[in-house]
C-alpha cells in the first residue's frame, strides 16, 4: 500500500504527459500540509480522524517522504541487522520546529515552512533529482522510437530549472539518506512538523501496537527493529507520539507479545489487522541517461547556400514585478499557499515555470518566457496544484486572466535594429492585443512596429518568447501583483 502510494506520487512528479495526474492527482491533494494550506477542511478532518483511529499511519503510507526514508532504511537494515535502539524523545526540538512552521505560515514566510515540510521536501527531490533521470530515460526511448519510425515516445527538454533549489534538494536527499540509513525515522520524529502534529493525536488513537507484558521476555528485538526508536523495552513502553505504525515490531516479536489492538482492551485473539507493513521492496528502474548534445551550427562568413545562423539563447529580462502563473490570483496568494513542492514546475510542458531564487518566495514557482510561453491550451499547473496556491482554471477562463502585460522595447526591435519587416509578436498574440502600425506617422508605407493594447493583453508571453530579438526580446512581459479578469 505504501509502495503503491509512493510510486504513484513519485510518478506525479515524473510524468510529463498529464496521464497519471488525471487519475491520481488526488494523492497530492490528501497530503497534510497542502490540505491545510488549501483550507481543505474535509481532507484535514479525515486525516485527523484516521490518526485518531489508527495512529500515524499517514507517516507510513501516505507520506512519500516517509516511504522514501523506509527505502533508505531498508538499505540500512541490509547493511546491519537489528540496528536501531530506543532513544528519548527530543520534544523541545520537535516543538521548536512546529513553532517555526506555524510562525512562518502565519507571518507569510511560506518558503521557510517549505524547507522543513515533508511533502515539499519530497517534491523537490522528485522533481529535481528523479525527474531528470526519468526524462533522460524517456529521451532514450524516444531516440529508439525515432529510429523505428514510431511516434510512441517523443523527446523532452531536460534543464536545470533552479540552481539553489537543486542544491537544497540534493542536500535534503543526502541528509535524509544518512539519517534514515543509520537511525530510521529521525527526521519524522525530530524535524517534521506534520509528524509532530500527528504525534499529538496518535497518543490518543484507538488502535495501537500494545505490548503484552505477560508474554514479553524482554529480548528487546522489537526496539532493535523500531525505525522510530520509540519502543522502550525495559519499561515495556511505546512512545505513541513517535510510532508510525509500521508494525515491524509485531513481525519481529518471537513471543507474539505485541498486538495491534484497540487500547485498554488487551484482546486475546485480535490478529494484527489493517496495515501490514510494506517491507519496502521497491525496485527502482534506473535508466541510463544520455546527454543529448545540442549541436548548434556555426554562422558562416562567406555567403554560401545552406547552413544555419547561430541562435543565441534568450536571457531573462529585468522584470519589475515577477509573473505568477494564471490561477494563482496574486503574488500574495501564491506566496501564502504554496508549499514549494515543485509539482507545477515538473508539470509545466512549456518550460515556463521554474523555482524562484528570491528569499521571499524561495523555491515557489516563477514564470518566465525564455524557453517557451504560457500556451493557450494548457492549464496543467492549475490542475496539479494540491494547495490552492494555483486555483483550478479552465482554458476559457485562462483567456481572460491577465497575469501581466507586454512592454515593447524600441531599441531591441528588429524593425528598428535591422530595418526588417517583422510582426511575429502580432501574429502569435492569442488575444489580439498587439497591432502593427507604421513607424512613421506621416508615411503609411514605412515599416510597422508593434503597439500593445494592455487592456487586452493577458501576459502569456507568446510575443516575448517568439520575438526574433536575442538575447533580449524586444517585447517582454511585466507581471501584475494581483491578477485581473479582462
Amino acid at each position, binding site marked *: 500500500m505504501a509502495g503503491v502510494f509512493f510510486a504513484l506520487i513519485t510518478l506525479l512528479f515524473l510524468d510529463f*504527459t498529464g*496521464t497519471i495526474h488525471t487519475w491520481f492527482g488526488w494523492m497530492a491533494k490528501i497530503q497534510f500540509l497542502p490540505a491545510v494550506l488549501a483550507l481543505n477542511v474535509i481532507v484535514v478532518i479525515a486525516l485527523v480522524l484516521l490518526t485518531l483511529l489508527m495512529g500515524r499511519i499517514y507517516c507510513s503510507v501516505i507520506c512519500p517522504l516517509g516511504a522514501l526514508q523506509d527505502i533508505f532504511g531498508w538499505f540500512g537494515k541490509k547493511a546491519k541487522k537489528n540496528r536501531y535502539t530506543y532513544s528519548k524523545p527530543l520534544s523541545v526540538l520537535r516543538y521548536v520546529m512546529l513553532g517555526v512552521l506555524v510562525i512562518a505560515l502565519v507571518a507569510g514566510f511560506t518558503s521557510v515552512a517549505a524547507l522543513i515540510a515533508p511533502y515539499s521536501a519530497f517534491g523537490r527531490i522528485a522533481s529535481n533529482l528523479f525527474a531528470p533521470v526519468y526524462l533522460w530515460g524517456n529521451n532514450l526511448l524516444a531516440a529508439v*522510437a*525515432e529510429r*523505428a519510425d*514510431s*511516434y*510512441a*515516445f*517523443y*523527446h523532452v527538454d531536460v534543464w536545470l530549472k533552479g540552481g539553489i533549489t537543486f542544491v537544497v534538494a540534493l542536500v535534503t536527499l543526502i541528509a535524509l539518506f544518512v539519517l534514515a540509513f543509520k537511525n530510521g525515522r529521525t527526521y519524522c520524529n525530530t524535524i517534521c512538523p506534520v509528524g509532530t502534529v500527528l504525534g499529538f493525536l496518535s497518543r490518543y488513537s484507538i488502535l495501537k501496537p500494545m505490548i503484552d507484558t505477560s508474554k514479553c521476555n524482554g529480548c528487546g528485538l522489537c526496539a532493535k527493529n523500531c525505525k522510530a526508536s520509540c519502543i522502550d523495552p525495559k519499561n515495556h513502553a511505546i512512545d505513541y507520539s513517535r510510532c508510525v505504525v509500521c508494525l515491524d515490531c509485531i513481525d519481529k516479536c518471537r513471543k507474539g507479545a505485541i498486538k495491534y489492538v484497540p487500547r485498554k482492551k488487551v484482546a486475546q485473539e485480535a490478529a494484527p489487522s489493517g496495515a501490514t507493513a510494506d517491507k519496502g521492496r521497491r525496485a527502482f528502474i534506473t535508466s541510463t541517461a544520455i546527454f543529448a*548534445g545540442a*549541436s548548434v*551550427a*556555426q*554562422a*558562416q562568413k*562567406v*555567403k*554560401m*547556400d*545552406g*547552413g*544555419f*545562423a*547561430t*541562435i543565441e539563447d534568450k536571457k531573462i529580462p529585468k522584470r519589475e514585478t515577477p509573473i505568477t502563473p494564471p490561477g494563482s490570483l496574486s503574488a500574495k496568494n501564491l506566496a501564502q499557499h504554496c508549499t514549494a513542492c515543485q509539482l507545477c514546475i515538473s508539470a509545466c*510542458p512549456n518550460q515556463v515555470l521554474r523555482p524562484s531564487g528570491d528569499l521571499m518566495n524561495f523555491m515557489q514557482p516563477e514564470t518566465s518566457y525564455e524557453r517557451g510561453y504560457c*500556451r*493557450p*491550451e*494548457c492549464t496543467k499547473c492549475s490542475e496539479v496544484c494540491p494547495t490552492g496556491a494555483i486555483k483550478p482554471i479552465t482554458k476559457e477562463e485562462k483567456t481572460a486572466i491577465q497575469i501581466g502585460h507586454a512592454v515593447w522595447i524600441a531599441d531591441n526591435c*528588429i524593425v528598428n535594429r*535591422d530595418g*526588417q*519587416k*517583422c*510582426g*511575429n509578436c502580432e*501574429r*502569435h498574440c492569442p488575444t489580439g492585443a498587439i497591432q502593427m502600425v507604421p513607424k512613421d506617422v506621416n508615411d503609411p508605407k514605412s515599416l510597422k512596429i508593434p503597439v500593445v493594447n494592455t487592456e487586452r493583453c493577458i501576459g502569456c508571453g507568446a510575443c516575448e518568447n*517568439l520575438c*526574433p530579438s536575442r538575447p533580449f526580446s524586444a517585447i517582454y512581459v511585466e507581471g501584475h501583483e494581483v491578477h485581473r479578469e479582462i
Partner: protein
Amino acid sequence: MINKEFGRRGFLKKLGMAGAVISGASLAGCSSDNKSKNNWTVEGTGGKPTGEMTYRTNPNTGDKVSLLGYGCMRWPMKKDENGKDIVDQEKVNELVDYAIEHGVNFFDTAPVYLQGQSETAMGIALKRHPREKFFIATKMSNPRMPDFKQSVEMYKNSLKNLQVDYIDYYLLHSIGGGKGIETFKERFIDNGLLDFLLKEREAGRIRNLGWSFHGDVKTFDYVLAMDVKWDFAMIQLNYVDWRHASRNNHAEYLYNELAKRNIPVNIMEPLLGGRLAKMSDHLVARLKQRRPEASVASWAFRFAGHHPGVLTVLSGMTYKEHLIDNLKTFSPHEPLTDEELEFLEETAQIYKQYPIVDCNDCKYCMPCPYGIDIPGILLHYNKCVNEGNVAKSSQDPNYAKARRAYLVSYDRTVEKLRQADHCTSCGQCNEHCPQRINIPREIERIDKFIEQLKQETL
C-alpha cells in the same frame, strides 16, 4: 500536450511483431528451399546495372556525354569533431568511382553547393581519374556578391578547387533570379564579367559557356536574344513542370525555345528534389502498377531523357542505391511511348492537386538570418502530406494519429528554435528561391496549421 499513451502499445507491439516476422521468415526460408528449385528466379531485379549507358553528342564539341549526369549538390555528409557538417569524402570517392565505372562522365557542381565544400570534394574525387574521362561543369554563383573582382576570384577558385586547367561546362548560375533582367545585367553585363568569361572561352579555359535558368521567363527570353553564342543551357524539366510549372515557367516552352536554336539542354531537378520519388501512396501505386519492377523515380528520369535535345540529365545521388537505380534507368535509356507520355501528364495533374510546397531542398534560401530551418519546415510538411498526416479537420477519422505524427515528427525534424513560429516574415529569403516560393507565406500557413493542431481547434 500530447496524450502519451496513444501509440505506445502499438509501438511495443510493432517491436514484438518485428521479432516474430524475422523468425517466421527464416522458417519459411527453410521450407521453401526444399521445394522444387527449378521454378525460382534466383537473381532479383535489385542488383547491378547490366546494360550500356546511353550517350548524347554535343553538336558543338562532339563531346559524348552520358545521359545521366552527376549533380553534386547533395553529397553524403557527416559530422566532424566540432559537430559541423562536412562532406563525407570517402563516400564521395566511392560513388564517383562507381559512377565512372558504369559510364557516367558528367559532373555538375557550383562554388556555393554544400557551403562551398562540393567543388573541393569533386577536385579530390576526380583527380584520381584521367582528365579526359570526365566533363566537369561549375558555375558563376555571384548573386549575393556581383562585384567583378570577387566574381573573377570565384571563377579562379573553381579551377583551383577542382584541380583542373580548364572547365568543360561553365554556367552563369541561376539567371532569372532576384529582379530578373535587372539582376542579370548587374551580375554579368554592367561589371564586364560576361566579357571576361567570353575571353576565357576563347583562351580555352572554358570549353562551353552557358547558363542555368530559374524564375523570371523574361530574363530567359532576353538572354536567348542576346548576341552571344551560348553553347548550352540548363533548365528545370520534369513531367510536372513540363506543362504545370509554377508561374507558367513551363519546361515545354523553355525546352522548345532552346531546341529551336540547337542549343543543347542540360536538365536539372528531373525529380524535383526527390518530390517525384517520394510521393503519396496513391501516386506510387499508380506508377508501380504500370511497371511493378521499376522505381517511382525511373519514370521521371525516363521523361527527362526522352527529349532528343537533352545532353544530360543531372541527378544529385546521395546514396549508392540512387545511383544504381538511375544507372539502370539510363543503361540504356528507354524512350517513353505516346501512351506513357499521356499517362505521365495525367499523373502530373493528380500530383498538382496535393497541397505540396514546391521546395526542392536546394538550400539557396539558407542561412536565414533569424535561424529558421526553411527547407526543414517545408519538407516536413510535404512528407506529412504524402503520408496522409496533414489532417483537414478534427472530424477526420485518423485525426488523433495524424496530429500526433505531425507534431512529434516536427519536433524531431526541426529544432524548436528554428521552427515556423519563429519566422519574422521579413522575406529576405524570397529572392534566393529558384522555385519562387513565397516562403514567409508558406511558413505562416504551416505555422497556423501547427497552431491549430496544438490548440486542437482544427
